[in-house]
């Protein structure tokens, strides 16, 4: 039997401090083999990591061939100790191996509930990171740092290193500390036990195989368990009977922000940007100064004036703080507190602004072009099979019926691909699709779409997750209510629940802060569409209804102020939005108090002395249509508003606002017609001529038949509606809906 020394390096995942100490220790030890905590069946992929085309952050992706949704990720950043160990091993021609449970053994559902406790492997979904997750098991070094009063584990590590300049003893000290930490633990979960057994067996095998020192790089938590002597047979017994599924592995580009623990990656770090900075300035003494300079650069970019003298003061303050806290040098917290006091004028909120940019970073990794197939393309192929759609370069029409399961599936797939920028299918009747259960698509596949899919890998491993991720990001970037509403509508159409709930949250927050009436009004119709026609897509709309009612109330309160003293252009824009919003509100049929609030708002517009005439007219019309204004009241109102005392331009504005979409009403509504008639007769010739274009505009909405009937009515020859019958206020709309239903039936009505 060959003799080998085994050195255990308990590291902090993604800890630049431990990466630095690790590289130094490896240099000293010069091991012939480096064993790393990671899925053992992916060992063959490891040397790829050292290729120059491979730019971290990148992640190792493992997924069962038939189910990419349960992908596991092992991300590596430039400052990850594991990554540095790989670089060292490849550079020094040492053997390189992953020793953890193979990915094929950790994927099935039974492992899922325990997998959340694993440190390097973190299931991709936030929801899968359970509540009972143990922070000190995931990041025991962070726990030690917290116990020592540090917020940032890296600052603690570097202070410890500062005090113990020899790298070797540090890892011994960490192992000691972990032994103490684990003594208090009861038995560990079966999945954890299996992982450690597997690692022990792999180490024992390596011990037989290699002649020379061996380095084991693993999460600090595991060190005591790996060092302890166990009978190999018990370990082997533990590993028996694990269900396995064939798994596929590849590398994927990753992003800096997705390394952050706040974004759902359990073993992530709080601030990848800070870690990267620490790694890049390791061994230098001006790290703190550089960090402050980076803060200043971001602040200056945002338009704040930061002088060099302030930077000097910030650094002095950081040193004084470190002295008060009895630390050898300023760490993350000291630098943050000092910059808030000296650079941000005490405004902690500004720090949050800068923080996101600086702490998360915007790095995007790159992978060599010849890496194995990306899971998104595989997922698409699987989906295409399920949807029975073939990618063809030639254009082809497709009509889907949203009521059937297969139709809905196809539509959802195409919508999701569109979110990802893969416009395989284009909706041909996009504008009119909302009321129907039928969508018409034109399909055409372009080769570049495959490339786009690979680019989208940063958002997720399956089409659903990637579309969710991408849309969520767009939601984050959207600034106005109406864009947000459109995005939410898109998310619901594509059945992306994560993105739509993120969108709703953003929408609620934005709705509260927006006082721009036009923006609120514009956001109402898309939301109304979702609520009204949501059933076709089986969406849950309760939450939306609440938001909708709130938006209506807000719009009603803001409206009377928004309509004051507008110029022509602004008034025209607002009238358009107001009509659309009102139509949408009638469609969703909100609660009575909300509806009456909305009508009160309209009434306030009508009565407001400073309301622009066009809008007052529009409000009067909407109230009249809603039955809130009786025919006599409307006639009286028209008479008053159009009376000779009113400035002609105001009267004309009111008239236009009232009648621009209500010309037909005049045919049937005697009271109204009388009021208009007498107003027209009261105009002197000059004013009448001035108003002719306006009158033309209003009456041009009527076709020749209607115009003739109007003339007949005015001249008293019209056929009247039988007494007691009045036209339904939404008659026109109802007729359109009936036609839509009738059309397909008349055309033969089959499935297309």
């Amino acid at each position, binding site marked *: 039997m060959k003799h080998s020394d085994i050195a255990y390096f308990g590291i902090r995942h993604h800890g630049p401090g431990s990466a630095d100490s690790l590289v130094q220790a490896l240099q000293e030890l010069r091991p012939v083999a480096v064993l790393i905590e990671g899925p053992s069946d992916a060992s063959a992929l490891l040397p790829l990591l050292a290729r120059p085309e491979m730019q971290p952050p990148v992640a190792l992706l493992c997924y069962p061939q038939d189910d990419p949704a349960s992908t596991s990720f092992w991300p590596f950043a430039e400052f990850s100790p594991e990554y540095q160990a790989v670089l060292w091993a490849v550079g020094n021609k040492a053997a390189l191996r992953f020793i953890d449970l193979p990915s094929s053994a950790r994927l099935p559902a039974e492992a899922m509930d325990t997998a959340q406790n694993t440190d390097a492997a973190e299931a991709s979904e936030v929801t899968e990171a359970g509540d009972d997750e143990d922070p000190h098991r995931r990041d025991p070094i962070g726990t030690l740092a917290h116990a020592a009063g540090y917020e940032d584990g890296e600052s603690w590590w570097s202070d410890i290193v500062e005090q113990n300049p020899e790298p070797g003893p540090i890892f011994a000290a960490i192992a000691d500390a972990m032994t103490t930490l684990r003594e208090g633990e009861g038995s560990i979960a079966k999945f954890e036990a299996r992982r450690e057994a597997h690692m022990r067996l792999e180490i024992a095998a390596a011990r037989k195989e290699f002649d020379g020192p061996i380095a084991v790089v693993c999460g600090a938590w595991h060190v005591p368990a790996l060092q302890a002597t166990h009978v190999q047979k018990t370990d082997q017994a533990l590993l028996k009977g694990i269900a396995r599924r064939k798994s596929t592995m590849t590398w994927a580009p990753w992003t800096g922000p997705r390394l952050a623990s706040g974004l759902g990656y359990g073993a992530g770090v709080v601030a990848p940007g800070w870690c990267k900075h620490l790694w890049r300035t390791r061994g230098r003494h001006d790290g703190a100064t550089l960090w402050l300079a980076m803060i200043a650069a971001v602040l200056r970019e945002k338009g704040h*004036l930061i002088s060099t003298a302030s930077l000097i003061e910030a650094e002095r303050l950081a040193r004084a703080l470190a002295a*008060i806290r009895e630390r050898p040098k300023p760490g993350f917290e000291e630098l943050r*507190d000092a910059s808030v006091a000296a650079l941000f*004028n*005490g405004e902690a909120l500004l720090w949050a602004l800068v923080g996101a940019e600086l702490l998360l970073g915007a790095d995007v990794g790159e992978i060599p072009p010849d890496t194995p197939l990306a899971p998104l393309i595989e997922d698409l192929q699987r989906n295409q099979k399920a949807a029975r759609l073939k990618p063809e370069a030639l254009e082809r029409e497709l009509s889907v019926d949203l009521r059937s399961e297969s139709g809905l599936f196809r539509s959802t797939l195409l919508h999701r691909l569109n979110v990802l920028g893969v416009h395989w299918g284009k909706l041909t009747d996009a504008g009119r699709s909302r009321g129907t259960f039928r969508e018409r698509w034109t399909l055409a596949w372009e080769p570049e779409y495959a490339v786009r899919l690979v680019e989208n890998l940063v958002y997720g491993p399956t089409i659903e997750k990637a579309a969710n991720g991408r849309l969520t990001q767009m939601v984050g970037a959207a600034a106005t209510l109406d864009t947000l509403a459109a995005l939410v509508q898109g998310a619901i159409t594509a059945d992306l629940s994560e993105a739509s709930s993120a969108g709703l949250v953003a929408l609620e927050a934005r709705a*509260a802060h927006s006082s721009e009436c036009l923006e609120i009004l514009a956001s109402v119709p898309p939301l109304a569409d979702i609520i009204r026609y949501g059933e076709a897509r089986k969406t849950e709309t309760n939450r939306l209804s609440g938001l909708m009612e709130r938006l209506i109330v807000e719009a009603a309160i803001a409206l009377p*102020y928004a309509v004051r003293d507008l110029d022509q252009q602004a008034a025209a824009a607002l009238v358009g939005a107001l009509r659309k919003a009102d139509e949408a509100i009638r469609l969703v049929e909100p609660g009575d108090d909300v509806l009456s609030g909305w009508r009160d708002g309209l009434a306030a517009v009508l009565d407001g002395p400073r309301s622009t005439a066009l809008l007052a007219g529009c409000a009067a019309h909407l109230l009249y249509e809603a039955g809130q204004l009786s025919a006599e009241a409307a006639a009286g109102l028209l008479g008053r508003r159009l009376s000779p005392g009113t400035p002609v331009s105001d009267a004309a504005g009111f008239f236009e606002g009232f009648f621009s979409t209500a010309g037909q009403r005049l045919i049937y509504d005697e009271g109204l017609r009388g009021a208009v008639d007498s107003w027209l007769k009261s105009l002197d010739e000059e004013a009448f001529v001035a108003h002719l274009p306006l009158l033309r505009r209003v009456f041009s909405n009527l076709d020749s038949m209607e115009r003739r009937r109007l003339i007949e009515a005015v001249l008293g020859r019209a056929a009247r509606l039988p007494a007691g019958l009045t036209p339904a206020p939404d008659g026109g709309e109802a007729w359109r809906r009936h036609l839509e239903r009738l059309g397909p039936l008349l055309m033969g009505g089959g499935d297309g």
Partner: protein
Amino acid sequence: MNAAIRLPVEQAYASELQALARGDDKQKPAGWSLSPKAVLTYLLGGKASDGTLITPKYVGRRRLMETAVATLATDRALLLLGVPGTAKSWVSEHLAAAIMGDSTMIVQCTAGTDENQIRYGWNYARLLAKGPSQEALVPTPLYRAMQDGKLCRLEELTRMGSDVQDTLITVLSEKMMPIPELNTSIYAQRGFNIIATANNRDKGVNELSSALKRRFNVVVLPLPEDMAQEVSIVSKRVGEMAGGLDLPVPKNVAEEIARVLTIFRELRSGSTADGKVTLKTPSGSLSTAEAIATMVGGLSQAAWFDGGKLGAEGLAASLVGAIVKDPVQDKIVLEEYLETVLKKRPDYAGYYAALNAAI
């Protein structure tokens, strides 16, 4: 027996300061009577080395006090910012007492403060009799603090005119003050520093010039973070003030304080207490001090006009006064809050009706 209404804190808390000084063997910056660590213990509470209990003077984040003390230890001036009623002056007084044992070198800055009150003034009788001379010069607190290496406190710095504020620039950066009349200067002795306080919410104050601002490290003192803490502060102060004004305190005052503070905190933070609904925030500060004033107003109304009954009707007018500072914008904010939040809470029905009637 001293009949002063209130003693300076270094006398009121003399025993605590002495106990801390006795057991303080840590290194002290020049001129300090306690080490920074002991100053922190004095501010945040704890125990002196001989077991004397130190009461907390500031309840809030430790980090802020650490930054404040570290700032003074670097000879940089400290500016405490915050809305009214966030204990700025209180902290400044205790800092000066703990660091120097003297909190009385103070300048209250107002719109009428001129340079003579900041730099030095003249005894005009002597000036006329003998011409400009050291004897004719009247030192200000700032002058004396420089001379003796002490801490000088400037209260409400932004209240005084910008031109007067800027006389501080030389003092802060070069630690000296020229006296051209006598062709001489005074040089600040080690230990000299400035603690200024200012209000960051009020409109119509003299914004600090960026040259001056740059010479301060700024610590913003926030409003109380949790509801329970704020309720206890308000209840205590309302009780004290009502006692001072001989107002009877009705039994339900605790419930009403909780309701009024909920309204204040929700509007101030821009979201409901359960975090479910985001709200617009009004332009006023809605500080703890204003909540206290609202409650005292309500109590007075109850005692003199409502037969001793404290309720939403009596409080509504003061509440609207506190919330609606801008007649258009704030009114929209309040209306929206009423319609989207209060309307749906049965136990706030009284407030919903009364506030609606009041606006």
